[in-house]
């Protein structure tokens, strides 16, 4: 399931729903991303997430479908927030449930790695110095590339 929303979400409730009523589930793995108070040496007062309505939902649905084809999963969930957030606020939640832990762990990692380089979101950080757009990290591209390298090895 995909959700792009301004509102906050309840981590426990969302993750519980991935196994609710399904006794075939042997494990659930979840990752949530939060607004960190520091960006390097700079203290952040707020962060505004912009996105591309329409393409965002499409990109997330594709990422979820890709995970579903790669691993035997029961359920997957991607929630991504947009709008103005403050340090400590939740930004994103990805989770996967499966009969066994390996698929749940791998799918969870895959979902966040791919989302970071494919989903059209942009972060604007506010600090005492003013507002500035966050630059993409090479490490994120490399994290996605690791999955592509694995594909070639398989």
């Amino acid at each position, binding site marked *: 399931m995909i959700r792009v929303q301004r509102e906050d979400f309840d981590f426990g409730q969302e993750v519980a729903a991935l196994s609710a009523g399904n006794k075939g589930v042997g494990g659930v793995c979840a990752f949530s*991303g939060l607004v960190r108070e520091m960006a390097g040496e700079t203290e952040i007062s707020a962060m505004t*997430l*912009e*996105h*591309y309505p*329409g*393409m965002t939902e*499409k*990109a997330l649905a594709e990422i979820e479908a890709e995970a579903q084809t790669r691993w035997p999963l029961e359920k997957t969930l991607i929630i*991504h927030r947009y709008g103005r957030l403050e340090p400590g606020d939740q*930004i*994103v939640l990805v989770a996967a449930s499966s009969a066994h832990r390996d698929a749940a762990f791998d799918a969870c990692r895959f979902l*966040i790695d791919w*989302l*970071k*380089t*494919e*989903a*059209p*979101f*942009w*972060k*604007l950080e506010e600090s005492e110095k003013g507002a500035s*757009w*966050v*630059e*993409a990290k090479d490490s*994120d591209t490399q994290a996605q590339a690791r999955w592509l390298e694995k594909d070639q090895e398989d």
Partner: protein
Amino acid sequence: MKILYFSWVRDKTGVSNEELTPPVSVTTVESLIDWLKEQSAGHAQAFTDVSVIRAAVNQEHVKLQHPVGPDDEVAFFPPVTGG
């Protein structure tokens, strides 16, 4: 053609979206960028360094050599930073 801009690309062009009719010589994302650069000083500034520009055609990531047509929705933005 519907053209959208996000993040600092929008800050520089000064518009979030516009409906434009490029000449028939514009057939790829790359040639669209060249034409857009002539439209205003802000557009020229936004596309100064094309290596930091990413594009989507009809809401799919594409390379700059990808074709574009009059009915397409084309978006320009920096590398994404969500998650």
